[in-house]
């Protein structure tokens, strides 16, 4: 067989359809293998680049270098376009740069993909809160609270609720804030610092009873926590439990001598305990001394705040306070009070009236005056 005839025969064989198909199949298989190799190389490089840029982005985001983090996350997204975490990182970096509108578009898309994601909901809630979209903000905060948080990020749900309470307090929705705090109390555990935080928030909404309970729970785990002691002292003080307040505040001040607020409260609490003539089981002599001291303090207050003295209390014969005080003054003696126990009430009513008027007209009272006001409040209605 000559080479030419061999060539002819071979080409005829090749033209037979099954042979052609076999050759094409083989070529396709080989091409597939080749492209698979290339594809692995390509994807490995893309993954590496995505990882490299996202690591840089995360690092800059963590360090608050948002301007650097934005292009880094954008670069990471070039290689892994749909990566949820990269997009979230980019959105967070944009929020850090106050580019909330841009961040919002990323977040709303991420929300579309994973509406149950806690971080996305929190970020969306923050944007809505900043935009004054209260309903949206509350919806996203609640989504975040009940969202699926990854293992190890349980505290994030708690943080979301804390943030929600903060937001509710900002918009003066104290009742809602209180319900959130009560729910939060059930989940917060024994972490002393979290209990202190909870107590502080209860204090802000003036739920002193819950606040005191939270501080006490914190103190049971960490008895020498100055913030918890100060908070418990404040809560007890606001509840009118001055003996308890004195106890906590004294410890708080001993741990943090620079805590002037607690120190002032401690002084007042002590004065209340000391000056209250209506304290149960008080000796008559002590009571009378307290009444005399209070009466004297009221007189001093009248001198310091003459405007208050001109006030004519309707209850006492149309005279002004100075006249009333002057009229009673001669009777407020050890003997006078012993002879006429009703004078205690009469004189203390006048003292309380003078103190209230003086506070109204002349502002910030002294510690003694504050104590008298608190005593007045303590025995209101009695």
């Amino acid at each position: 067989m000559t080479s030419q005839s061999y060539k002819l025969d071979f080409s005829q064989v090749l033209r037979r359809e099954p042979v052609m198909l076999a050759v094409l199949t083989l070529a396709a298989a080989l091409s597939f293998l080749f492209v698979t190799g290339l594809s692995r190389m390509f994807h490995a490089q893309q993954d590496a680049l995505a990882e490299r840029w996202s690591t840089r982005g995360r690092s800059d985001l963590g360090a608050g270098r948002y301007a650097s983090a934005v292009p880094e996350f954008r670069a990471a997204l070039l290689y892994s376009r749909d990566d949820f975490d990269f997009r979230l990182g980019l959105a967070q970096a944009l929020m850090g740069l106050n580019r909330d509108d841009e961040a919002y578009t990323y977040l709303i898309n991420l929300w579309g993909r994973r509406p149950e994601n806690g971080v996305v909901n929190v970020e969306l809630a923050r944007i809505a809160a900043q935009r004054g979209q209260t309903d949206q903000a509350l919806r996203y905060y609640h989504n975040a609270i009940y969202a699926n948080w990854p293992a190890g990020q349980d505290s994030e749900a708690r943080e979301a609720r804390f943030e929600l309470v903060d937001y509710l307090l900002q918009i003066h929705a104290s009742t809602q804030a209180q319900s959130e705090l009560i729910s939060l109390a059930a989940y917060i555990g024994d972490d002393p610092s979290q209990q202190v935080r909870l107590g502080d928030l209860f204090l802000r909404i003036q739920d002193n009873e819950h606040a005191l309970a939270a501080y006490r729970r914190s103190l049971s785990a960490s008895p020498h926590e100055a913030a918890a002691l100060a908070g418990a002292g404040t809560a007890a003080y606001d509840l009118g439990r001055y003996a308890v307040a004195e106890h906590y505040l004294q410890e708080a001040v001993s741990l943090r001598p620079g805590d002037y607020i607690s120190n002032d409260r401690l002084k007042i609490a002590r004065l209340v305990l000391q000056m209250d003539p209506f304290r149960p089981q008080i000796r008559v002599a002590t009571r009378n001394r307290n009444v005399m001291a209070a009466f004297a303090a009221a007189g001093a207050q009248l001198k310091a705040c003459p405007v208050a003295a001109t006030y004519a209390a309707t209850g006492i014969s149309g005279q002004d306070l100075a006249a009333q005080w002057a009229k009673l003054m001669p009777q407020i003696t050890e003997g006078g009070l012993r002879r006429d126990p009703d004078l205690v009430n009469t004189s203390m009513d006048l003292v309380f009236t003078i103190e209230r008027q003086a506070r109204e007209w002349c502002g910030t009272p002294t510690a003694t005056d504050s104590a008298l006001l608190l005593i007045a409040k303590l025995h209101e209605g009695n």
Partner: protein
Amino acid sequence: MDSLNAPNASSNVVQDIAAIKPASLAGLTPGSILHSVFREERFFLVLSVFIGVFSGLAVVCFRFAIDWSRIYLLGSGAELSTVRLLLAPSLAGLAIAILTIHVFPTARGSGVNQTKAALYIFDGYIPFKTAIGKFIAASVAIGAGHSLGPEDPSLQIGATLASAIGRRMKLSRDRMRLLAPIGAAAGLAAAFNAPISAVLFVIEEVIGRWTAGILGSVVLSAVSSVVVMRSFLGSESLFRIPPVELRRPSELIAYAILGIIGGFASIAFSSGISALRPRCRNMPQWTQYFQPAVAGLLIGVIAMLGAPQVMGAGYEYMDEAMHGQFTWQFLAILAALKIIATLLSFVSGTPGGMFAPTLFIGAMLGAAVGGAEHALLPHFQYTAGTYALVGMGVLFAGFLRAPMTSVFMVLEVSGNYTIIVPVIVANTFAYVISRALQPTPIFDMLSRQDGLDLPSMEELREEDVLHVEDALQPPPGPVLEADDPLDRAILAFEGSMASCLMVRLPGAAWACLTRERAQMLAQEGMGSHALGTLLGEEQVPYVHPDQPLDTVLRYVNRWPVVPVVNRANVRKLEGVISERDVLDRYRDLGA
């Protein structure tokens, strides 16, 4: 275009075979011919799948090459250094010019017209070197930041691979011609991850008409290439599609305005190409070496001045525009700058496609117009994604002048049927404005600038097609039945001037009895014989009134008249048609 009807023709042949027994097919049984025809069809379909597979693989490699070029030329970060911004596109332009002038001269341009030229001029032949040149030059150009896209080169790469496979298989000329569009559809489908749009575009812009014979192959190759591409690159769309909605019918006004603005933008874009391309080509030869480099440098300057989004295909920025990442003012600037950047790249002869830039301009323009409308009329519902998507369709309809593809492309990409009404409204405005102000579509204009007289698909779509009913004549005499004796036919001939009478045979068959034949049979003493027995072997193929007139030309050389029968009842004769009738009708049309 006759060759494109070859499969149709073969199916008609099968129909003929069933009806008649021509002398020319003597020796071959209908069964063997049918077997041969169907076997060839089947093999061609299988071949289409292989073309799709190879095209898909090639497009995957092309995408890798573009990304690698970008990483190594422009850097892997999102923020590019000034040096790279200026140097990468300029130096790449210089290298591309040398390659296209000395090594791959056929790799210039987008690739769509070259594929059409292969179909209409070169019998489906595209040198394999073209694919290599296109692959290298386009990937470097796009990767280096030239404002061009990968779709048209992918289309040409697919067509070239198909042509190469066809040559290796030593296919007939007709089959070879069909292969180029099949490969083109596969390449485009893989590049765009949208098989339906690819099929439609190839039919609308490359082939120019629907032909059943090729449709199956085109669809198979497009689908197989997309499957291959998705197995390597995933099934994600080129952009993430945001929720699309149309809340009130009155919003259609806003989309109509977008269509009008898009129409004018298309005119600006195509007029720029029309004016600048010939001037660049007519410049001295030595400037050809520097034109892509200068274009690259200018694009680098645009990027350096704050719009790096105009570099490359820009899909990631279309994605961002759809998700409202830019203000409408910046979107409008980007649309204008992209037109300039694409003009620079394209007219300088840099290889690369115009699909992606068209979509980019459309997306930016759409979102910008939507944003501006919303700013002026805040009660108008505005979602950037919807306007960007509609904008893409608008530019596709206005600039590429592929109206059907533009609608389906948006539908396929968005996967949302709600958008169809705004798309149709906006695209119609853009298409009408573009046609009115720029009568020659962009691809036709480019082919004419290249000195090629390729058929205009838009003209083809709109040309008057004559049908059989336009030329049919009443039967020349009475219609005879198979039972009638020959004598009756003789009597009928005596009473009329007809040269041929139609005879209704049993079943769905017809015969034509000529005056001469009738006289000859009568002389042989067969006057009492039934016409059915005399003419049973001489059946005439029939046609229907709605068939194209040129169908008749296949039969009139063998039979003096061809019966035209009703589709609902083939035994009912609507008329007859002869060669003269056909030619007279065509002559009247030409006059």
